[in-house]
């Protein structure tokens, strides 16, 4: 039931106020045609009797009140889904961008999705091996989790995300087909090209779906882009039984687009001018990760966001952290010292790791060892800070050992190559070798049985390494 009007009254930023409309509903999809022939999609943000407020995804450049055609399409925004999406590149509104043919959709689904019933969810407890020690060993990712990367401008978050996309494997039972859905929001062509090249080189592109809204694409379109990507992901995960990894970057631009619309609507702003519903809005994206009982597939999300001025209390990382299950934080100091990946181990956290590691998942000693490594590294950092003030001579014997541990930890555990794919066994092995640097009495967080089982081998290894070196 399409209806066309040319009764626009006001145009403010990306918004149009259209009068004398009939039967318009909230959220309805709108097609706009401007006098210069430009077309834009939009949707209804508010409807009050016969007045509708429409947000134009492609912006309002070229429009004017009297000659703009506004067509209400009588349906919400949808995406046509099909298995054929794999290997394809779309624009931010789900239209093919790679020159290929249109997708023949199996069906069209609303991009807003529906909340998963909490009782239908299955708890994410299957380890995903990313091959990166600082993640696998200390803050492991599990299937169905949403684990953002908090980064800053100039840090190698894209390399890290690409490495995860390349290397991520699911092991053990139910290891099924893996797919990557990539949504770009406002990033540069170069960044997007980097991802595409990386995926192509490993033929991972065949199992990927890309939605690209680049820096020069309309900002408001970004509000729809992650929803397009998640709708595709839900189809692949829950109807095609695939394990889908959704990477979207950069959430900061997405939130700024929301702010732009909110400001144009003259809404009461919350912190830093972001709308009061930012939390709810972000939740409707992030919460689309998960597993469902009785379905083989899963959706795992890695949103990437650059923190303005590396400030993690900025509303975007702050609210994100409250919804996602932990965060991987990149650290500028490590990056300056040339450590890749510069994962700030201490403030990073994976909230779901308890269930995803241990016997039958990774190894029995994983939890204790990672606790010990965390604690020892924290103490080592403290000792080093102390040494800066007092000089190294002032450190106690134990503190000196911890300080040495912290250095070795950064150098051998955190640092690894961009194409270095470590198995979890390798990661834990390095952890035990590092543990030999500490007095045995300090290994308080590890059960004695594990110390007895794993420490001797690591000690022997450490001795061997030392002998080889000499």
């Amino acid at each position: 039931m399409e209806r066309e009007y040319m009764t626009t009254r006001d145009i403010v930023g990306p918004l149009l106020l259209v009068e004398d409309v009939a039967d318009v509903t909230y959220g309805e999809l709108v097609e706009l045609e401007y006098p210069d022939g430009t077309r834009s999609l939009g949707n209804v943000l508010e409807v009050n009797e016969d007045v509708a407020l429409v947000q134009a995804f492609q912006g309002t450049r070229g429009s004017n009140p009297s000659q703009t055609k506004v067509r209400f399409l009588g349906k919400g925004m949808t995406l046509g889904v099909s298995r054929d999406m794999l290997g394809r590149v779309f624009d931010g509104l789900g239209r093919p961008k790679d020159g290929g043919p249109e997708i023949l959709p199996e069906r069209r689904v609303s991009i807003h999705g529906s909340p998963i019933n909490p009782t239908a969810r299955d708890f994410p407890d299957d380890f995903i091996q990313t091959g990166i020690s600082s993640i696998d060993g200390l803050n492991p990712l599990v299937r169905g989790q949403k684990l953002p990367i908090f980064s800053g401008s100039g840090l190698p978050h894209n390399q890290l995300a690409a490495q995860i996309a390349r290397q991520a494997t699911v092991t053990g039972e139910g290891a099924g087909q893996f797919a990557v859905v990539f949504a770009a929001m406002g990033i540069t062509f170069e960044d997007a090209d980097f991802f595409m090249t990386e995926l192509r080189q490993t033929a991972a592109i065949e199992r990927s779906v890309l939605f690209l809204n680049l820096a020069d694409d309309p900002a408001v379109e970004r509000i729809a882009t992650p929803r397009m990507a998640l709708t595709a992901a839900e189809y692949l995960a829950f109807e095609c039984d695939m394990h889908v990894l959704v990477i979207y970057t950069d959430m900061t631009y997405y939130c700024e687009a929301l702010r732009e619309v909110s400001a144009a609507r003259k809404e009461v702003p919350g912190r830093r001018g972001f709308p009061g519903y930012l939390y709810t809005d972000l939740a409707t994206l992030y919460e689309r990760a998960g597993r469902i009982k009785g379905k083989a597939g899963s959706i795992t999300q890695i949103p990437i966001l650059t923190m303005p001025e590396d400030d993690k209390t900025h509303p975007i990382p702050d609210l994100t952290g409250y919804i996602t299950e932990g965060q991987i934080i990149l650290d500028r100091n490590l990056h300056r010292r040339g450590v890749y990946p510069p994962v700030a181990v201490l403030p990073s956290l994976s909230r779901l790791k308890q269930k995803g590691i241990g016997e039958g998942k990774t190894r029995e000693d994983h939890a204790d060892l990672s606790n010990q490594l965390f604690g020892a590294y924290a103490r080592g950092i403290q000792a080093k800070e102390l040494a800066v003030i007092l000089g190294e001579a002032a450190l106690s014997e134990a503190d000196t050992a911890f300080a040495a541990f912290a250095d070795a930890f950064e150098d051998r555990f955190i640092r690894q190559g961009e194409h270095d794919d470590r198995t979890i066994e390798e990661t834990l092995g390095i952890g035990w070798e590092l543990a030999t640097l500490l007095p045995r009495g300090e290994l308080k967080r590890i059960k004695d049985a594990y110390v007895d089982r794993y420490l001797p081998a690591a000690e022997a290894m450490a001795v061997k390494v030392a002998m080889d070196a000499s």
Partner: protein
Amino acid sequence: MADLEQGRVAKVAGPLVVAEGLVRSRMYDLVRVGDEGLMGEIIEMRGSRCSIQVYEETEGIGPGDPVVSTGAPLSVELGPGMMGAVYDGVQRPLDALEAKTGAFLTRGVSAPGLDRERRWDFHATASEGDRVAGGDIIGIVEENELISQRIMVPPGLAGTITGIHSGTFTVTDPVGTLVDDSGAEHPLLLMQSWPVRVPRPYRRKLSLDEPLVTGTRVIDTFFPLLKGGVACIPGPFGAGKTVTQHQIAKWSNAEVVVFIGCGERGNEMTDVLMEFPELIDPYSGEPLMKRTVLVANTSNMPVAAREASVYTGITMAEYFRDMGYSVVLQADSTSRWAEAMREISGRLEEMPGEEGFPAYLGTKLAAFYERAGKVVTLGEGEPPAGEVPAASTAEDDAPRPRIGSVSVVGSVSPPGGDLSEPVVQNTLRVVKVFWALQDTLAFQRHFPAIDWLNSYSLYLDKITAYWQEHVGEEYRSRRDRCMELLQRESELAEIARLVGVDALSPEEQIIMETAKTIREDFLQQNAFRDDDQFTSLAKQDRLLKAILLFHERALAAFQDGAELADLFAAPVRERLARAKYLAEDQMHVLGEIESDIETQLVSEGRRGGVR
């Protein structure tokens, strides 16, 4: 209910719908919007227009769609069948919704809060001819091994029972009738309903005097919560707030647990949903779920239902309180609730207060927390066994008061960990216990990351008498002594940081070591280790005793000429560090540790003498 008033939609803006033509409806009446009958609540009335917050997604609703008023406020159904249930924010059972529409929540589905089909064995305790009033117990339904539902006369109703039968009934079958003073007949049902925004009545509030034991050492010993008390956990993300709350739900000695997941993560809720049924209640050996009600309104579920969810939860908690149970209600997180208020207030275009929150934020928070408390309930009838001392009073016939309590633990999620923001500040004005979670502690993997210097409990003096009677004479003084050592440590740490540990006097170094022992071997507790997650009050007292003994012996031995390094390297410290993992029935080992301390922490000369 005969004349359902119908109006029409005039405006839709997200979860807020403005309707016209509902002239007889009242504030907070429940309405159905659109052809699908989406649930909503009237929250503002201007002339003939009323604003409705809708509990479901409003896409596809437009002007002209019908709005039907139910003529009644948003209410919950209270009766047998609540235990183990998982509800959304407006008490729709999520498993029933799943059975109807599958894994994803779709709109316009409804299901009653209590199962209409299930039959319960009702045992009448009142008899024909009894005069009863609101709150009086007329019979019992054994819902499960842990909870027996005491069926009560709904508040506000009074009269004479003209018929009552034991037997098997559904919640809507009349089990009897009551004739009130005007002669009107009322059927007596197993269920009653109650508007969520109205606190359930009670006879009077009581002063609090019993601890809510959680088994978490830093809470029980240092910052205790009482039955009927209110506590607040703030926490920057990643500080372990949720784990702490789960611990309280699992281990606290309340009889009924109501857990509200308000605007929280879906996976976290799933964790609760999957873990609770497997958890064994340490007090009875039965699944914990049998005494738990869950309200799950995750962050991506409609925001208006999130606003309602805390009221839904506390009304259910009050209902169990009225039966004489002690209830612990956890709301995670009240910040999400406040944000839901803010979001709706914004859509109403209300003039905002601080940070865009509505001006009535403080009032609403205070009113919510005030629904906690320990009360003498309405009505007469058997209180649960053990709750009230059985001592007979002078008049043996005098009805014993029925006492119930609701303790509330609300979590707040301050943006950026900034405790000066309005939700935290308004909460701190009303709560008595504050468990200050610190992310810096979490980074050091000090869990539970409750900062011992910034936390407080205003209940300490109220609880001391109980401690002296039930735990140990010296528990309070030991606690205070440890607190003092921790306080001293923080001062000394400042100095040590600047000039080095060696610049401290030996006595001060001993204080630092003891404080470290308190931190690492008492305060730190691993919620995921079977042998560490719960510690009884008696064992907490014993641990403190051993740690303080170490401190005193170390001081004495040093004055007697012992070397500090030898004292700090005493082998018993290893045993002391592991004492927290001792099982509750191995307390005698603590005695051995104490005698080890006595023998090992002595000067060389003294040791020779002993030999």
